[in-house]
C-alpha cells in the first residue's frame, strides 16, 4: 500500500519550470530517496509535500487523505508531516528541550518524560537538555532536529539533505542511526539528496530527478544497473560507456563481444558497464580477454582506480577505461594487462 501519492504535479516560477508533471508513489514504511543535481526541483517537491509551497496543478494524498487538489488544500500545520532541513534549523532562542518539545501537545511531567525519551533515542545525553543550539556541534543539532520532528509522531518524515553539512566520518553513522530510528518508529520517509552514494545506501526506493522531471524510479540496485539514459548512469556512479553493435543478446564493442540484457538488434547502440564489472589480470600471451596497458594509477587505500588504455578496438582504438582493483594488488603504470567482463552490459536507450 502507498502512504503518499503524488499525481501530475506541475509548478513554475515565472518562466522557469520547477516541477514538470511529477508522479510518484511512496509505499508505506519505505524510505524513498529523491536524488538529483542541484536545481533539479527535488527540494521544491519536498516543500510542496510539507505544505510550504503550492503547485500550479496536480494532486497529493497521504494515507488516503487528499492533502491537495484543485479544490482544496490542507495547510502545513494540519498535515502532521515532519520536516528536517539541511542545517537542522533549530529555533535559536529555545533550549534543546524546548526545541524538541515544540510540537508536543502534552504538558507537565509527561512532556518532560517524552522529551527525555526522544533525546535518548537520538543518542543525546540528558544533560544537553538545557543547552542552546549554538552550543551544539553540527551532528548534535541535526539529531535535535530529528527528535523534534519525531516528537509529534509524524505520518510522514521529510529530510532535506540532512547529512550534507556533516563531516564524512559522521555522515555514515548518522545515516545508519536515522535509518534505524525511522524503522523503529515505523515512519515512512522521504529524503532528498544530491549525493548518489548516500542515496543508494539509504533508499528502499530511489527516484532520480533532473530539470524538474522525474526521470526514473525504482529499487536502488535496479537503477544502478539499469539506468534509463547516459546522464542517469553517470549520476549514479562511475560508468564505462561505449558504442556497440547489438545482435542476439551480444554486443560487439571495443572490449570484444560481451553479453547484454537486450534482445533486439541494433547497428549503433550505447552500452554501459560499471567499472567493477571489469576484471583485471596480468597479461600472459594467449589468455582470453582484451589487452591493454595501465596508463594512470589512483591509489585510494583499499581500492585503486586504474586507467587502462586498450591496445586495439573496433570503434575507437586506444580507448581508456577506468578499472577498479584491490589496492594492494594494483599493478604499476606500464604493466600490460588483460580485461575480462563480469555479468552483462546494459544497453542504454537513447
Amino acid at each position: 500500500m502507498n502512504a503518499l501519492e503524488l499525481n501530475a504535479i506541475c509548478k513554475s516560477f515565472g518562466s522557469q519550470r520547477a516541477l514538470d508533471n511529477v508522479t510518484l508513489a511512496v509505499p508505506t514504511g519505505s524510505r524513498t530517496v529523491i536524488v538529483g543535481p542541484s536545481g533539479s526541483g527535488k527540494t521544491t517537491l519536498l516543500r510542496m509535500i510539507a505544505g510550504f509551497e503550492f503547485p500550479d496543478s496536480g494532486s497529493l494524498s497521504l494515507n488516503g487523505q487528499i492533502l491537495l487538489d484543485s479544490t482544496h488544500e490542507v495547510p502545513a500545520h494540519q498535515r502532521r508531516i515532519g520536516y528536517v532541513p539541511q542545517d537542522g534549523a533549530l529555533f535559536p532562542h529555545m533550549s534543546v528541550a524546548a526545541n524538541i518539545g515544540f510540537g508536543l501537545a502534552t504538558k507537565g511531567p509527561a512532556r518532560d518524560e517524552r522529551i527525555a525519551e526522544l533525546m535518548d533515542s537520538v543518542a543525546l545525553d540528558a544533560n544537553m537538555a538545557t543547552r542552546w543550539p549554538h552550543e551544539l556541534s553540527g551532528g548534535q543539532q541535526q539529531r535535535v532536529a530529528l527528535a523534534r520532528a519525531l516528537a509529534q509522531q509524524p505520518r510522514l518524515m521529510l529530510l532535506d539533505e540532512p547529512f550534507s553539512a556533516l563531516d564524512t566520518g559522521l555522515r555514515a553513522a548518522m545515516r545508519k542511526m536515522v535509518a534505524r530510528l525511522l524503522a523503529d518508529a515505523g515512519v515512512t520517509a522521504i529524503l532528498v539528496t544530491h549525493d548518489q552514494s548516500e542515496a543508494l545506501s539509504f533508499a528502499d526506493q530511489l527516484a532520480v530527478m533532473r530539470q524538474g522531471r522525474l526521470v526514473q524510479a525504482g529499487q536502488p540496485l535496479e537503477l544502478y544497473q539499469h539506468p534509463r539514459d547516459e546522464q542517469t548512469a553517470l549520476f549514479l556512479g562511475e560508468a564505462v560507456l561505449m558504442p556497440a553493435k547489438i545482435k542476439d543478446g551480444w554486443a560487439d564493442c571495443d572490449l570484444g563481444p560481451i553479453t547484454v540484457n537486450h534482445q533486439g538488434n541494433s547497428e549503433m547502440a550505447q552500452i554501459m558497464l560499471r567499472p567493477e564489472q571489469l576484471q583485471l589480470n596480468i597479461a600472459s600471451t594467449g589468455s582470453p580477454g582484451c589487452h591493454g596497458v595501465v596508463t594512470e594509477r589512483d591509489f585510494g587505500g583499499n581500492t585503486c582506480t586504474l586507467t587502462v588504455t586498450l591496445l586495439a578496438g573496433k570503434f575507437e582504438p586506444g580507448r581508456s577505461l577506468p578499472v577498479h582493483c584491490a589496492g594492494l594488488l594494483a599493478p604499476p603504470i606500464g604493466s600490460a594487462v588483460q580485461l575480462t567482463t563480469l555479468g552483462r552490459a546494459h544497453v542504454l536507450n537513447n
Partner: protein
Amino acid sequence: MGRGGTWVTGFAVLVALLSLLPIGFVIGVSWQVGWEQIQALVLRPRVGELLINTVLLVLLTLPLCILLGTALAWLTERSNLPGRRAWSLLAVAPLAVPAFVHSYAWVSLVPSIHGLPAGVLVSVIAYFPFLYLPVAATLRRLDPAIEDVAQSLGLKPWTVFLRVVVPQLRLAICGGALLVGLHLLAEYGLYAMIRFDTFTTAIFDQFKSTFNGPGANMLAAVLALYCLAMLTAESAARGNARYARVGSGSAREQQVVRLGRPATLLALILQTVTCLLALGVPLITLGKWLIAGGSEVWHWSELLAALQQTLFLGVAGALLTTCAAVPIAWLSIRAPGRLQRVLESCNYITSSLPGIVVALALVTVTIHFARPIYQTTVTVLLAYMLMFIPRALVSLRAGIAQAPVELENIARSLGRSPGRALWLITLRLAAPGAAAGAALVFLAITNELTATLLLAPNGTRTLATGFWAMTSEIDYAAAAPYALLMILLSLPLTGLLYLQSKRTAGR
C-alpha cells in the same frame, strides 16, 4: 505572495510614497517659482559662496575623518597598543555629544574661532566616530587567511595593509564617509555657532526672514541636488563591491602587530590628543559652565518639561519609525526583488536629505493640503520617520534575517498555525533588532534640532531646542544643563551602538 504579502507590500508602498514628499516638494516648488525666478535666486554670487563653502568643508573634512577613523580603528583592532579596549570605547564616545554641543564647547573655549578652519576642526571631532565604527568592525571580521597568503607571497606588512586590507575596507570607508558627508550638509547648529555659512545655515536665515519663501525653497532645492550628487558619488566609489553578509565571521583571532616603542608613543599621543579634543573640550567647558552657573541655571520645572517632551517625541518617533520600517524590512528579507529595491531606495534618498529640507517640505505641504495635522505632533513624528527610517531598517533587517522563513515553516510543520508561528518564532527573534533600531532612532531624535524647530507644535520645547534658545542669547551657563541632559540621554544608546558593532562583527 498571497494576501499577506499584498498587505505588507501595500504598507511599504505607502511609506515609500510618503518619503517621496520632500523630493516632490522640491520639484513642485521649482515648477511654481518658474525658470526666471530660479535663475535670479540660484544663479547669484551668494549661492556660489555657499557652494564653495560647502564643497570645501566636505573636501577637507572627509579625508581627515577617514584618516583619523582608520588610524584609530587599526590601532585599536590590529596593534598591541596598551589599553586597546578602553581606547576603542573612547573613540565611539564622542557620538554621545551632539554636534552643536561640540561647537558650543569650542566657541566658549576659543571665542574667536570661526569660519572654514573652525568648521573643519569641529566637524572632524564630532563625526570621525562614524568612520571609526564601520572600519573597526570590518577590520575585526576580515579573514586573516587572506593577509597570511599575501605575506607568504612576499609582501611586506605595510604593503599588505595597503594592497590587501585597505581595498577590503573600501565599503566601510565609503559608507562611513557618506554618512559624515550627509551630516556635513545637514548640520545647522554646529556651523551657526562658529559663524560658518553652509547651505543649511543660509536656508535657516532665509526661513527666519521669509518663512517658506521662494528664497529658502530654492536653496533647499540646490541642497537636495547636492545630496543626490553625493549619493551618486558614493555609489560610484563603492563600485561593484557589495555589503558582504555579516554572518559567521572567521573564528580565528586577527593577528596583532607589535608596535615598537616610538610607534607606541606616537600612537598613544594620537589617541590622547583625539580624546582630549573630542571628549575633553566638551566635558571641561560644560563643567566650567555648570560650576559658573551654580544652582541658578537649573530651572528644574523647565528642564523637566523639556526632558519630558524630548522623551515623548523620542519614544513616539522611535515606535512610529520602527513600525513603518517593518514592512520594507520584511520584504527585503522574505521577498527581495526590484519593487522592494525601489521602495527601499525611496526611503534611503529621503533620509539623506537634510532635516531643514524635509521640514520645509512638510511645513508647506501641511499648511496647504493637510491642515488638520499642521503644527501637530503628527507632522514632527512624520518628519522624524522620513529622516531616520534607515536607522531602524538596518537593525530590523538584521533582526528578521535572524529568523529565516525556514524556522517559521518548521514551526508550522510541527502543528502551529501561521499566526502562531510568526509570533513564536520570527517576532521573538526579530525583537532585539527592532529594539536596537528603535534605540538608534530615539538617539537621533533627542539630538534633532532643525526639523524640531520648524515643525514642533506650539509650546513644545525639547532639550535640543531649549539648548539652542539659550545659546542664541549667549546664555552659555543656562544652556549647560540642557547639554548635560542630552549627553546623559545619549550615553547608554551610544554604548548600545558600540556593543552592536562588536557583536555583528564578532559572530
